């Protein structure tokens, strides 16, 4: 066996291996984008203070942040409510979505029978279901969670179901010559292979979940950041509305970041593109 390295036919190929790129300098990589974002905020401050616009049209960043100190906004509780709705709807969608996708993957029959229905349902503007869901379940945190769920469930089922079916036939042949069980094929080949699809669905859904929860709060609620926005809108308190939008965005970014982090741990770090 030690012959391998002395054989001229093979030792050369080692040299043409694409070597891992040198670790990117963190500062170099991110300083540009961060500078651009800071510049935008500075520009916002500049325009809002010198542009002659009234503050109910364009409050300055400082005015916006100042609304955090206003206890009547109850930021903590409102943010918590919205966070629960977003994360609840999203996590529910992942659990139910993956379960249904697995169910499909077990049988081609089920897949061909139900996939068109799912694709059709996906075309329904879920936001339009909001008032109906409120009629069924009355308004509240649970209802808004359901609206978030309804809106982010489909991308997860559809991408995961596709991913579970993306298995090269030759790989199945190979497994079958080794008399691999369906369960072995599932756990060793199919499921890990579907993870990149699941995560791409989850990233789309993370964004949608935020929209779903806020729309739910707009349609009917007595708590949450969407509710707060409607309350202060009456007084043309645009600065508080701006701050609410920032808080909603922050919750969304945290959810998206968590998904991206999990993806990095489970998929990207492990060699999958």
């Amino acid at each position: 066996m030690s012959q391998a390295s002395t054989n001229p036919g093979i030792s050369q190929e080692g040299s043409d291996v694409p070597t891992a790129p040198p670790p990117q300098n963190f500062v170099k990589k991110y300083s540009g984008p961060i500078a651009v974002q800071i510049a935008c905020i500075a520009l916002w401050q500049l325009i809002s203070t010198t542009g002659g616009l009234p503050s109910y049209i364009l409050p300055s960043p400082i005015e916006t942040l100042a609304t955090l100190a206003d206890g009547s906004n109850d930021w903590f509780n409102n943010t918590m409510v919205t966070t629960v709705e977003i994360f609840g709807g999203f996590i529910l969608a992942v659990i139910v979505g993956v379960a249904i996708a697995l169910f499909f993957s077990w049988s081609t029959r089920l897949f061909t029978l139900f996939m068109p229905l799912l694709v059709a349902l996906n075309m329904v503007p879920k936001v339009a279901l909001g008032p109906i869901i409120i009629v069924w379940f009355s308004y509240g945190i649970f209802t808004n969670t359901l609206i978030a769920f309804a809106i982010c469930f489909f991308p997860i089922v559809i991408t995961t179901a596709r991913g579970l079916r993306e298995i090269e036939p030759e790989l199945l042949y190979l497994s079958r010559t080794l008399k691999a069980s369906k369960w072995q094929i599932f756990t060793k080949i199919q499921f890990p292979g579907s993870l990149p699809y699941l995560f791409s669905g989850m990233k789309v859904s993370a964004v949608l979940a935020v929209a779903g929860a806020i729309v739910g709060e707009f349609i009917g609620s007595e708590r949450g950041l969407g509710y707060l926005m409607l309350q202060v809108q009456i007084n043309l308190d645009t600065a508080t509305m701006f701050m609410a939008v920032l808080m909603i965005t922050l919750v969304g970014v945290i959810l998206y970041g968590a998904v991206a982090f999990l993806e990095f741990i489970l998929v990207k770090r492990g060699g999958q593109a």
Partner: protein
Amino acid sequence: MDAQIEPFISLQNVKKIYGSGTNQHLAVSDVTLDINAGELISIVGPSGCGKSTVLMILAGLISHEDGQVLIGNTDNPFDANRDIGMVFQQDLLLKWRTVIDNILLPAELLGLPVKESRERALDLINLVGLDGYEDKYPKQLSGGQRQRVSIARSLIHDPKLILMDEPFGALDALTREKMNLELLRIWEKSQKTILFVTHGISEAVLLGSRVAVLTAGPARMAANIPIELPYPRTLEMKTHEEFGKYCREIYDLLGMA
């Protein structure tokens, strides 16, 4: 061929029809071929003539209509559940597994002892010339290196029969020739029976102790040509007059001369 030797594989008038009813397609009409244990046989034939179909029948993945397929003899009993290794044109490596874990996949599916399998995998990594690459991911390898990994994977469970379906078809010409030499070396070391399907006539002659020529579909055995070039074979042999004669004979049989 020595008539006394009991063949390891015996294909007798094998026939395969795909589909049923009015939608039938005769893919293989009549293939008869004996292969001895430890032989490396090349199979050539035009595209769509049924080469892959013959391999699939041997792998027990599809049924056949007429004729007989026997694998194994008294000296080399054959266990259809674990004595087949396969290599395809695509490397079929799992992106999320490292080189060594990809090689170990068949061992895991068969439930072979972990420690011994790992040692064997490391030996195979050495055999295919990938020392030091065991913890790399497929995307960090070149096409030729990936195909080496898939050859190692086909050997991990120590099968008696290796079925290769155009394994180097996706490689560039230079890498392909290099891999031909590699395969010859691996074959000599591992003593496996190998069926090597290819479109490349000179590749078939360079590798095979015999070349089975199939004619355009439905596959029919046109010839079974013993290649009397000594092993170990070298690329230099491609320039020999004899080599050219074998190639010409095969081109003739395929009507391409």
